[in-house]
């Protein structure tokens, strides 16, 4: 199990968090249909580092963006975001 440092609550067990999606798969409201489709359905899915949106669902319920390695599970950054900060 990973330990995730919530920007608001500090280090917490991973079981308090839920994964949402990757940062690059947030569909902008004004996206053209083709772009929206590609963003919604395609993932880089790297065997390495990716930026992910998680939520501290069973804690402060805030969203956060985590930079995590998909093989080692090493978390190199976890920062707070609000809806206005998303692309």
């Amino acid at each position: 199990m990973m330990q995730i440092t919530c920007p608001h609550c500090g280090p917490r067990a991973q079981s308090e968090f839920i994964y949402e999606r990757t940062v690059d798969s947030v569909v902008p409201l004004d996206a053209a249909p083709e772009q929206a489709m590609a963003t919604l359905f395609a993932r880089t899915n790297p065997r390495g580092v990716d930026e992910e949106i998680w939520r501290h669902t069973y804690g402060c319920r805030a969203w956060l963006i985590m930079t995590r390695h998909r093989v080692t599970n090493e978390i190199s950054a976890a920062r707070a975001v609000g809806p206005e900060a998303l692309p």
Partner: protein
Amino acid sequence: MSRYSALGLLRGALNGQKHWQPAWRDPEPKAHYDIIIIGGGGHGLATAYYLAKVHGLRNIAVLEKGWLGGGNTGRNTTIVRSNYRLEPLHNLFEFGLKLWHGLSDELNYNVMFSPRGAMFLGHSDADMVKLAERGDAMRCDGIDADLMTRDEVAKLEPLLDMSRDARFPIQGGLIQRRGGSARHDAVAWGYARGADSLGVDIIQKCEVTGFVRDGNAVVGVETTRGRIGAGRVGICVAGHSGHVAAMAGLKLPVESQTLQAMVTEGVKPMINSVIMSQSLHCYISQSDKGGIVFGGDPDNWPSYAQRGHPMVMEGAVAQGLALVPALSRLRMVRTWSGVTDMSFDGAPIIGETPVPNLYINGGWCYGGFKATPASGWTYAHTLATGKPHPLNAPFSLDRFERGATIDETGSGPMPNSR
């Protein structure tokens, strides 16, 4: 290649078992193949076997970065069934189930397929309605499915907690009696031996590191054992599809997650069928060695780590113990998890890619093992002819942009909600 038989065993008993030959060769890669399959798991080896057997092609190579069946073929819960509600899914898996029933004879290799019955449990009125609906959909297409009463479930599996105050009360079930389990390694080895004897080159410890392009088209692969030319290249690396497809500049509707499984020490027969609860997410069966095999949830977050998480194991075991309390005294001896391609509608992806000469077979989510023969058969057709097989046509990569997704669970386009 000598045939395996009872007579061969007897002969071995008399000559000190000295006549056995390696089951497949260990060839050096040639400079060019008509068809290269990336990935020496069950699906890749089955594809090569049917390319040679059904389509008569001989100049074929299977490239495997590690050893045969060392990926998801060796990291699943070996359940075989075709009890899906949606027509494209149950047609594909039923085609596979029919092949499973004759597979040991076909390959002259005992894959230990055991049709002991695959049973879904229903825990509520709503569950029973869904199971009835699923069973009806299957029976309309000639696939066996029997709705079971509470008493019938209790009779088949006396160790289930059927009490009224059980944590997960059981109202009934849906059984596919022709479903069951098989020996995972034997499937890879049987197909490898069969393909090799038909002239297919199986090249292990050969990792693909890139694609050779002529314009947009793929004309070969770069590997850790040098460049190999190819007429057509088929990706068959489920779990790592995104990683390999990215080498060709493709982004797939796939997110990799690990799927948890584990096994207990061996005990006398106590679980008669394959017990599954989709309302929970718990799969329980007993291997021929006696170990109780548990399957659990995927991790629900992206991962290529081929190892499990105690949190997910605990969840699966808690569900299993609530269903079959008698398991509580057993010791867990091994846990493992495979990297699964979670596609965005829960169905596999088989067919052409936007890149000429490059084909893909992946996105099997947590249901790839049972499909091994059907996947190989239909993918071989696609690689040999360049066209979809009627059974894999609905599973093309472009179905997402066409809005023609095949969403069995109806949970929408997020793999982690499946």
